[in-house]
């Protein structure tokens, strides 16, 4: 596969920026007022990259503080503001929009054979909402930050906190409506704009992931919006909503907050699952195992995900019966996730696996997501959760899901579709090195956190007893490795924009409509709108068979092949 790319000897001085949608205009205006879903995807990509580094710098300072047990690098108050900034920025300005607004925006219309999203102007409008929300966040940061933690728990946030809570809450509120608009756009597009022959069960799983995630976004985000609005009104006007002095219930805030914020975990992970479901069949040259069940699993996760929020509140004093139900449902939601992990693994069986960097990232995803998911089962179990609540065990658990899972998948997608998006190949050796470095850096950072969390190290403290220092030093050292691994793609991908080899239309010999058009795609995606006649993932249906046997068509292959379909 890479050999074919090496053989591509097109002159390097011809710029890709004159081809396809990239050639539509080079002025700032041509970008800021575009309604092309592909250009809006690029706008989003630039935006979330900036926020990824803002959130990254915040946590780098936190990790520096934690190298020594004493509170010596920043004050306790600054420490609170740093981890809050990290949480708010990473959740709402990176993870939630990450894959849907960039790759979803870019690929969804192409994958279903459409010319654009259903509402191109609304699409641009959602980016502007994200930008307004982002500007409020920057204002909040420059004004001095917020110290409530990303969860904004009342009554601290609504009454006592002496920081810029309202700016932060409004930032999330506005950006939330941007996400809702994207969700509405995706749902409508998938329902009304599929090409002839693109039936529901021929949709690539990435499209299914975008569909299910959009439904979750549309139904969960407004609840967060209302919750933060009520908290803001309480803080600004003094009307008691969650204030216990007037009979209000702070737990009501937590219920409403987690009614969004647990599904938000699925908003972050479902698109990642969609990406991995595209990459693994391609580099295993193998039809995806159990397509139908992969679809049902996505739907099941998105539905059950709405009914597990109480597991964030096991120690809050909510009813013991509620705890039982939420615990049970949290175990149940692991079943469809496990189905997906088994099916990705089964897809590899008898595959002709190659280890291009998107595949390495996807392997990283499967392994790290599995660890993150299984430790989630620890925490779904009430007695263990009581022991581990608010410790680094929880931090490690959700970072395995969100960073090991979602961010790995984000980088898998970035490398997999980079040739399509930019028309350039990235340097494969560097990319493989970065992928492996990211995997190890990630584990160096977060595995010690499982151990120290289990041993009792609580989250959100800038100082700690000296016996935890070894784990914190390991973790901070790992974070430094991870930071290098994140900076590398920024460098070599930028390099490839100018000096990378020209990408062919389908460098990975992948199935899927997006690969049938040119790289980079023309403004309306296809010269002629496609008609779909094939099932998705039309790779080798039986897996690896000896060339000779296949050519001779011998009867041996069924025994060797382990026929699936």
């Amino acid at each position, binding site marked *: 596969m890479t050999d074919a790319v090496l053989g591509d000897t097109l002159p390097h001085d011809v710029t890709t920026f004159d081809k396809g949608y990239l050639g539509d205009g080079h002025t700032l205006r041509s970008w800021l007022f575009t309604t092309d879903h592909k250009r809006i995807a690029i706008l989003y990509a630039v935006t979330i990259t900036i926020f990824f580094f803002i959130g990254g710098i915040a946590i780098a300072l936190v990790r520096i503080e934690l190298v020594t047990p004493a509170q010596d690098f920043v004050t306790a108050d600054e420490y609170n503001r740093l981890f809050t900034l990290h949480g708010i920025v990473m959740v709402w300005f990176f993870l939630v929009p990450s894959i849907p607004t960039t790759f979803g925006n870019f690929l969804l219309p192409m994958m279903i054979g459409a010319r654009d999203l259903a509402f191109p102007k609304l699409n641009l409008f959602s980016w502007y909402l994200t930008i307004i929300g982002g500007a409020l966040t920057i204002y909040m940061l420059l004004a001095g930050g917020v110290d409530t933690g990303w969860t904004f728990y009342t009554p601290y946030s609504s009454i006592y906190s002496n920081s810029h809570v309202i700016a932060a809450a409004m930032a999330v509120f506005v950006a939330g409506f941007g996400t*809702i608009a994207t969700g509405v756009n995706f749902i*409508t597009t998938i329902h009304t704009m599929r090409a002839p022959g693109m039936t529901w069960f021929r949709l690539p799983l990435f499209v299914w992931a975008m569909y299910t995630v959009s439904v979750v976004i549309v139904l969960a985000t407004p609840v967060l919006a209302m919750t933060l609005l009520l908290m803001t009104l309480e803080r600004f006007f003094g009307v008691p909503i969650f204030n216990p002095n007037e*009979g209000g219930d702070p737990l009501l805030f937590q219920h*409403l907050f987690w009614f969004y914020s647990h599904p938000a975990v699925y908003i972050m992970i479902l698109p990642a699952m969609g990406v991995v479901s595209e990459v693994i069949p391609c580099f295993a040259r193998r039809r995806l195992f159990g397509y139908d069940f992969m679809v049902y699993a996505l739907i099941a996760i998105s539905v059950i995900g709405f009914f597990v929020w109480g597991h964030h509140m096991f120690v809050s004093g909510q009813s013991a019966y509620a705890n039982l139900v939420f615990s049970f449902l949290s175990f149940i939601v692991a079943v469809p996730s496990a189905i997906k992990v088994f099916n990705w693994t089964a897809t590899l069986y008898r595959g002709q696996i190659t280890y291009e960097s998107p595949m390495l990232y996807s392997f990283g995803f499967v392994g790290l997501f599995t660890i993150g998911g299984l430790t989630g089962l620890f925490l779904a179990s009430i007695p263990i959760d009581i022991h581990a609540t608010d410790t680094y065990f929880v931090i490690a658990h959700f970072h395995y899901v969100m960073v090991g899972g979602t961010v790995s998948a984000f980088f898998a997608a970035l490398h997999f579709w980079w040739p399509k998006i930019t028309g350039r190949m990235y340097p494969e050796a560097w990319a493989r090195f970065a992928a492996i470095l990211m995997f190890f850096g990630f584990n160096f950072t977060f595995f010690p956190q499982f151990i120290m969390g289990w041993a009792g190290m609580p989250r959100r403290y800038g100082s700690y007893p000296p016996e935890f220092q070894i784990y914190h030093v390991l973790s901070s050292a790992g974070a430094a490795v991870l930071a290098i691994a994140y900076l590398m793609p920024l460098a070599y991908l930028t390099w490839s924009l100018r000096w990378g080899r020209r990408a062919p239309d389908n460098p990975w010999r992948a199935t899927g409509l997006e690969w049938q058009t040119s790289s980079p795609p023309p403004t309306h995606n296809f010269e002629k709108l496609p008609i779909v006649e094939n099932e998705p993932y039309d790779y080798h249906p039986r897996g690896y068979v000896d060339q000779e046997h296949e050519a001779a068509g011998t009867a041996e292959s069924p025994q060797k092949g382990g026929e699936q379909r």
Partner: protein
Amino acid sequence: MSRATTYSAEEAALREPWEDIARQRQAVEMGMWAFLASEILFFTGIFAGYTIYRSTYPEAFWVAGGHTSLFYGGTNTAILLVSSAAMGIVPSAARWPSLGSFARTMLWVAALLGIAFLVLKGFEYAEDFDEHLFPGPDFEIHERGAQLFFAFYWCVTAIHAIHLIIGIGLVARLAIAGTRDPRWFSQTPAVQATALYWGLVDVIWTIVFVILYLPGRGS
């Protein structure tokens, strides 16, 4: 109407990336319903809070409910219901070129009724302030939980009013653009979408009316 004008009316209403006005209409309607689902969940957040507190403080909510103005609340409910009736005619009427100006008149009727609602709401708010019904140290009712009721009263009605202001803006925009280009008006899916949004604002209000103005009335 001749065939040629039908074609150009459709063309006037057709937007990128659609090739077919019927499909575009279907999509806009579907997108609007998805957004309305989102809006319903938005208000569900505040209604859920209200429900929980009402079950915690049933008597305080009963007493506090008696302090709202049934006159303003009732009149405003009637106004919004009439506006919805006017709006309900619009999507069908707009499709008939001979009824286009009638449909636009109905849009203005709905918008003006919406403004009347807001004016009455303003008087009601002034009266509420005079009666010390804004939560705080001077609050009129001393029962524990009554402040919560009025916290919801102010938040829900204010958030609803913002939705209504947006609705009035959308309706006025539709009426003005429709007068400028009647052929666009006869085909554009914006008519149905605006009417759906207006309907939601009205439905939310009827729930607000029931939960904020009716407790504390009767025996």
